[in-house]
């Protein structure tokens, strides 16, 4: 898929969510933990790192990461677009929703403002538990935002 197509696909996915504008697209935390026990599919919506009126034009973009689990093996595919500068690194981190934490594993990210994410990672039992408790998140760093530009917590797919 070309970056342009990716952007379009992403846009379509998101706009579908927005225009439906109903519960279906959104997973409440309670339902989530209940389902996470058996779930094998997880998804993170990637959105800008914390920003202010001064930084809203320099911390930009959007994306998505999809995770499937086979035993302790995590396979991740994803796409991102519209970053303010090229992606330099991407990681999975460990921290509960909205609470940053340490790096767990590295991902492969296209060195571009629009690109793809991939990874195959062997999780420890502890990390597997963290995933099921929504305590793993994906973060992409960029040339101009070395502290991170896009971020998203992984939640079980409904």
């Amino acid at each position, binding site marked *: 898929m070309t970056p342009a197509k990716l952007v379009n696909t992403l846009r379509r996915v998101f706009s579908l969510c927005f225009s439906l*504008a109903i519960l279906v*697209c*959104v997973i409440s*935390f309670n339902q989530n933990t209940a389902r996470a026990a058996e779930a094998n599919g997880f998804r993170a919506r990637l*959105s*800008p790192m*914390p920003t202010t009126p*001064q930084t809203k034009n320099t911390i930009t973009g959007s994306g998505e990461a999809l995770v499937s689990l086979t035993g302790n093996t995590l396979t991740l595919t994803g796409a991102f677009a519209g970053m303010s500068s090229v992606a330099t690194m991407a990681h999975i981190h460990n921290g509960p929703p*909205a609470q940053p934490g340490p790096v767990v594993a590295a991902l492969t990210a296209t060195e571009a403002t629009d690109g793809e994410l991939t990874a195959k990672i062997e999780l420890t039992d502890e990390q597997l538990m963290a995933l099921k408790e*929504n305590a793993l998140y994906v973060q992409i760093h960029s040339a101009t935002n070395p502290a991170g530009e896009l971020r998203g917590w992984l939640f079980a797919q409904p």
Partner: protein
Amino acid sequence: MKMQKSRLRPLTLRNALLSAAVALGLVACGQESTQAPTSTATPTAMTSAFSDQAALGAGKFAANCAACHGVNLEGTTLGPLLSGRPFLQRWGDRTPSLLFSNIKANMPPGGNEGISDADYLAITAHILDTNGVDAITAALTASTDFTIADNASELVANRQRSEPPAPEGITVAGNVDDYSPFVPVTDAMLEAPDPADWPMIRRSYDAHSFSPLDQINTANVDSLSLEWVWNMHEGDSEPSPLVYKGIIYLINPGNVIQALDGKTGELIWENWAGPANRQDMRNIAIYNDKIIQATTDARLIALDARTGEQVWETAVADNTQGFENSSGPIVADGRVILGLAGCARYIKDDCYISAHDANTGELAWRFNTIAKANEPGGDTWGELDDIFRAGGETWITGSYDPDLKLTYWGTAQQKPWVPVSRHLTINDEGLFTNSTVAINTDDGTLNWHFQHVPAEALDLDEVFERVLVNRGGEKLVFSLGKYGILWKSDRVTGEFKGYKETVFQNAFTDIDAVTGRVTYREDIQNAKLNEWTSACPSSAGGKDWHSMTYHEPSGLMIAPLSQTCLENAAREVALVQGGGGLAASRKFFEMPGTDGNLGKIGAYNVDTMEEVWSHQQRASFHTGTMSTAGDLVFVGDLDRRFKALNARTGKLLWETRLGTSVQGHPVSFAIDGKQYIAVTSAVGGTSPRTVPDVIATEITYPRWGNALYVFSLPGN
């Protein structure tokens, strides 16, 4: 024209009022001087250590401040103006040292890494220089303590004013009697409003924001059509129109009130109470034959409801000390009861709720929201001197139970925002902040209080409307604050009855099911200066000023909610008289797990506290919710959409798009048996507005377009 300097008079409230009276003359002078060949430079532009410092500051200001305050300090929708008379009125009697420490502690709001003390001093010099402080030569230091007004040339201060003189008093004369005979409003009429009327904020004393009209209902709402539109004055606007016997009384930004014929949209009268600014006022009240108005500079005014002519005026608090109002009064038991805001400064006076005689304006009582050392609750502020106890604003109008003769108010949190900035700890609860207070209307004494979030630590207040609900034999009070927690208490005793988390929150690790006592996450409890803490929701609130509605037919509390999170870092604030402030850096991000949906309408069964339905979308909601006996709930959003949902199921039944973002409080009324729905489009506002702006950057809308839209069913 003489370029002679005259000193600004010391700015006191009395002088401020006086100067309003002579404003015409001053402004004429100011306009004259703008035509002078010298532009904005001071008459004698000799260089000095001060002017060099100011020149350096100009660049720093452009880089760090101009985005919100304007390149010429003229203000934008993101930040207030920092020049001219309005600025000098706020800062004239203080010192450069205080201005420097205030800016350093509070600005820019997103964080100040990379701005040194020298930069802050240079910026302070630039602000003073632009405001005509030209009688000094020495560079500013952190302790420069001259009185700003004493060193500002009046000429330059006035030259900042580029706008034509604002009108005062009546600008359009008319009489409501010519449209429908005016009938004085009685206590009985306010206790049980006519179904056709919307005679106070949220319509009734119990704050249900519910209209008993059912002509427009789930079966026919899809044919709702525009009847008329009225453009309002520009500025920050979050208004709640008031409707009585077919006449709409509309508060505009800048303290302007209009009376409009609800049927035709014809303007009957208009009154400018001043000051003519761009500031917000959410509501006004009607009682007897008077419209009662709080002003942005903390005055209380009664107008003749028929003609708009002023009847009485009184001061609520001293605006030169920072006090202001952004919400108006309710009239309960013959008394005008109103709150107060702008209480973050380290001064002797603190915030209060006050009651005035509705016929004369005479003060009846005050209830102080901040306990002084020698008062009940005074020991909840550590060792802090009274002067440094700040916050506890009552910036949202309370509600009233006529049987219990109690008025219910929410109070804002302690200031500055983080305990370490306040020189306090997480154990210093700070009564009576972030509480529900039930106050006896006859004497202003406290009947009971419940502190929802003691020692608040993230700028998340619990100040919003108190909704009074009777269920079975129980008399209950509900509120929903920025933490997104729906609280239920017994409103006779104050006893805690239950809670519900309406959006994700991770600020508290525990909420005691029996007592309602909250426990903050450990890193929030111990947050140090300049240390970033990440938490949900953000200061835009799980819920903010947009009032929720109680739909009695279904027993549902239906609330407009917002889903964002913040990173917060406390800044240092010195304990000096006249200082204070908010003192935190903040950044914002989407709430995890919401798929980027900032807007949520949640409906909660008031008995079980369970969520019955929710409606979520990308655009944040910017009006209160209003429900009707037609089983509808109305709400508007940032993306210009005004919507009607089924109140029982949340199903979207109708929507239309207005000129700009839909913001304010929808209302419903009837004239000659025909039901109308009215809502305002509006711009401006603080966190609930600026946070989505930072996150949902793809949503665009005009930055002006305040207006009132009135809808009805065709052919009725």
